[in-house]
């Protein structure tokens, strides 16, 4: 799943963050945690709120797990990780409900459901439970940022084309493709964006190798939440 775990020189913080944003982007590359990526991205602000919540939960849980992993028996580690995530999700959930009540009213259910995100628990399992504190922190930061940026990209795409605005400010006259803000539009947006990334990747590979290998489908990992 990750090349960073193989023995070798320790990855720098910069590598870890870039890894989360590009090479192992949770939404576009690992195809994990897709539900919120479709659900809350009707506008940039909704995406931003959920992205920040995921970023905070990922970093805080990664750090917590690195700190207490010596006390956890390996056989009960998954339930313990779940409880750690649930604690941080509850805290973030209450904080967001208190500070941003209007936005929270729209995405509240999905903030609570962060607890069941496959991406968070899989990072705890493959990274934070084995690596020292500082790399775990930066890995969490990178994964959270990757998720946040993916949500922002989808949110901007849908809001710009769907309601002709960006972060609530109208910038285009009328509503070019109102369809994209509808439930079905979310699925089509992701389909188009994913196909776009696949196309870019295939082009880049063809340019590198000078031949045309069969393009790979976007990330095979569709199990988990």
């Amino acid at each position: 799943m990750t090349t960073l775990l193989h023995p070798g020189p320790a990855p720098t913080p910069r590598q870890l963050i870039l890894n989360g944003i590009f090479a192992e982007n949770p939404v576009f590359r690992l195809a994990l945690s897709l539900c919120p990526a479709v659900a809350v991205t009707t506008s940039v602000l909704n995406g931003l709120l959920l992205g920040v919540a995921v970023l905070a939960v990922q970093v805080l849980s990664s750090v917590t797990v690195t700190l207490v992993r010596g006390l956890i028996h390996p056989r009960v580690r998954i339930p313990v990780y779940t409880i750690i995530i649930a604690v941080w999700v509850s805290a973030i959930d209450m904080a967001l409900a208190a500070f941003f009540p209007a936005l929270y009213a729209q995405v509240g259910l999905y903030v609570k459901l962060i607890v069941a995100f496959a991406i968070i628990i899989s990072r705890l399992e493959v990274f934070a439970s084995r690596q020292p504190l500082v790399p775990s922190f930066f890995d969490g930061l990178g994964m959270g940022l990757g998720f946040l940026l993916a949500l922002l990209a989808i949110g901007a795409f849908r809001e710009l084309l769907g309601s002709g605005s960006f972060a609530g400010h109208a910038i285009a006259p009328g509503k070019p493709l109102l369809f994209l803000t509808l439930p079905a539009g979310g699925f089509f947006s992701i389909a188009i964006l994913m196909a776009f990334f696949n196309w870019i990747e295939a082009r880049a590979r063809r340019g590198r190798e000078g031949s045309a290998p069969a393009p790979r489908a976007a990330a095979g990992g569709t199990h988990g939440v």
Partner: protein
Amino acid sequence: MSRSGLWLAAALTAAGLMLTAESAGADDTRILSARPVPPDGIRLRFSAPIGRTDPANFRVTTAQAPDIPIAVLAVEPGPGHRVSLKLSEPVTSTGRYRLDVSDPPLHREVNPSPWTLMLGVFLASALINNFVFTRYLGLCIFFGVSKKRDTAIGMGITFAVVMILTGMLSWAIDSWVLRPLQLSFLQILVFIGVVAFAVQLLDTVLRKTHAALYQRWGIYLMLITTNCIILAVPLLNATAKSGSLEALALAVGSGIGFAVALFLMSCARERMELARVPAPFAGLPIAFALTGLFALAFMGFSGLDFFR
């Protein structure tokens, strides 16, 4: 299809009315039943004739805002001590209202019949607000297991069973323990625990009692433990502070809705294997586009109302 559905609804409503009529009954004048009747009426049945049938004799409010009366435009007496009120504002078949009569002095909560309520919540959660197509929950599982029809059916049934079990268990804990003790902030932690517990329980019981069944469906159980779609049912119930019937209807409806979505998608994807898909769209992107088409179709259910 639609005619038999109407008959079913009528029979269920009649059964609900009979149940309420039996539970009341006394010497002096009482309100035997009170139901909201869309678009803008309330139907009452008294145990004896009442003296005044002018609009000023009745005061109607919603249950949420008992201080703001809704004007009663007309009162129509009917046979068998029945009275129909015509209101200035529309009512919904699942809304809750309060009614005060000044002569004779009576008070009554106007609630939808339990059957209406259950059927309404069931249809809403199964079709109108389908978990996959309009709430976007359980997408990863949805894309992961909808490649083959057999797997999809197994997964759908297992999900529905677990959803009903955990939904009712969490509802009981939430409304009898967490809310009375002001512990609602523990919701997320407790619900995750309940789901894990129920899945483990089902796993153990099935393995001991129905080995054949376990061999067939057991593998899906382990995939469920911390799934967003399973967790969403208790969370939705807790947010809406639902009663037991609504909670049950939501759990059953969501389970069936998810199973239907999985089945439809698996049928479509089996066909897709033979289709020629543009290279960048191969795999997940075309599956997303397909789901988008299903979501478009399911939008047609948004106008569905049985009781109009």
